[in-house]
């Protein structure tokens, strides 16, 4: 695709480590994405089983009191007993994360378009964006709590803020990716600005946006839980804090296990999506 490859842009080490090479060799894009999913979930289940066995061995051998380390059976019992509570909290966290990402993608792609229209705006804002991107957004959670209030808007705002800069820079790079000769060809054929945009720039930007989403999505769920934990809006983060302050440690560990699984699955999903989109667009 015009010699510009989103995989090169994202020379983030995570990519090479997480997308196994044999997945790339798979024939169709659906198969490749499914392969990534199955591989990663399989690894997760195997690792989880080993952790459970070791954990059980340690907790039975030490006879530790449950405020130090509860046994896996206690945690499983708490998970079953509080199933509805945990499921509700998980749903809320997931909902806020997805809405936050959707909001930030809309704004980010819109702004990136604006930068295609106006090189001056591009030169003004892009250096600032690159600098801001390297600030860990979770560090400013207390400020966001004050700005957005203690409702679920706070969680959504936090997730949006976290993903915004990554997606925005990726989209901008994608819109700029078509080669000069490609754009000149469109101009020669008498295409309008909007035709060039729809037929050339947007298709080339899609894979970049998904790469940006993967980079940001890895920590989106954790960020949502952080926001809940600090602001007290309902969700998994608050559930964990409440369970700890009531010393209901079985519930707390169950919530930790669920949230770890959720974060891992979400990350896996973004990787598989990126894989599917990259393969589909032939890069």
């Amino acid at each position: 695709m015009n010699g510009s490859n989103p995989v090169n842009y994202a020379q983030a080490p995570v990519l090479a480590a997480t997308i196994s090479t044999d997945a790339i060799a798979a024939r169709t894009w659906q198969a490749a994405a499914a392969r990534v999913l199955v591989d990663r979930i399989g690894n997760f289940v195997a690792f989880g089983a080993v952790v459970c066995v070791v954990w059980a061995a340690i907790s039975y051998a030490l006879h530790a009191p449950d405020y130090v380390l509860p046994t896996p059976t206690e945690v499983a019992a708490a998970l079953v007993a509080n199933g509805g509570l945990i499921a509700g909290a998980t749903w809320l966290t997931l909902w806020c994360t997805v809405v936050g990402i959707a909001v930030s993608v809309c704004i980010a792609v819109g702004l990136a378009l604006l930068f295609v229209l106006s090189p001056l705006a591009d030169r003004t804002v892009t250096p600032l964006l690159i600098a801001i991107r390297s600030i860990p957004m979770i560090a400013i959670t207390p400020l966001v709590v004050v700005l957005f209030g203690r409702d679920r808007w706070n969680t959504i705002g936090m997730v949006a803020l976290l993903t915004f800069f990554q997606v925005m820079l990726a989209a901008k790079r994608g819109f700029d990716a078509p080669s000069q000769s490609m754009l000149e060809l469109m101009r020669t054929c008498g295409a309008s600005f909007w035709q060039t945009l729809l037929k050339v720039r947007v298709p080339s930007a899609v894979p970049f946006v998904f790469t940006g989403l993967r980079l940001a999505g890895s920590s989106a769920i954790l960020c949502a839980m952080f926001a809940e934990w600090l602001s007290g809006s309902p969700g998994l983060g608050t559930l964990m804090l409440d369970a700890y302050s009531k010393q209901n440690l079985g519930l707390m560990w169950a919530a930790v296990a669920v949230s770890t699984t959720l974060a891992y699955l979400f990350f896996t999903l973004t990787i598989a999506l990126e894989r599917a989109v990259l393969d589909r667009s032939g890069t």
Partner: protein
Amino acid sequence: MQPSLSHPAARRTSRFTSRFASFFMPPALLIVAVLVLAEVCARAGVAARSFPAPSAVGIATWRDAHALFEETLSTLFVAIYGFIAATAISLTLAFVVYAVRRVETTVMTAAAVLSSIPIMAIMPMLLIWMGPFVSTRIAVTCLICVFPILVSAIQGVQAVGSRLDELFTVMAARPLQRFTRLALPVAVPYLFVGLRVAAPLSILGALVAEWSGASTGLGVLMLNAMFSLQIDRLWSTVCIACVISLGAYGYVCLIERLALPGDRVIEGASA
């Protein structure tokens, strides 16, 4: 053309300064414009209460300068030691993966799952297990930093070419020799990609550790300001946190530029 500009060196300097100005002027002007706008809005009373005048934030920072400086030092102390510990752990694991190729998937899966654990949830348990000491905060920082460094270190040691590998086999190098003389030098540019990502994360780790129970540090000031709704103080602590995160990033970039010849630096997105 003026005579002073006709000299090649002078022309080069002027071109350099004009390029410098055209790169830095627009963002700088934007920042100044935003600050002035915020100041005017706050003075006129149209801004929301959570947006104080920049001058008020500046005054609050100046008034608390001494306390802020000390707490920031305490946060930096935790961040630096956590960062160093994370680097040491990553290099050790990279050595294991380099010596025993088969464990790579296991190590990577374990690291990915561990990095998915919400830190604020296990922070109370860490406090129970390790006690309310600085070492607990360093451990949390280390936990947050370790994933990007580990991934890049493993990617680096796997970038060794097969011919060099064979040469070391022919020379009967021991695993440790092979690692320090061959794999590490090859891995350094890759390692720096991870270090660049982890540097701001180390500040974040120290702050998070302070949020969940500590008596000193910038994070404590931040939370106190948030709970007592001292908006100027909150803004000044958040600004300082952002500045030291950027400083950490810039510092690692600087060391990278000094340590590596320019063509070995790997540019790329941060994770």
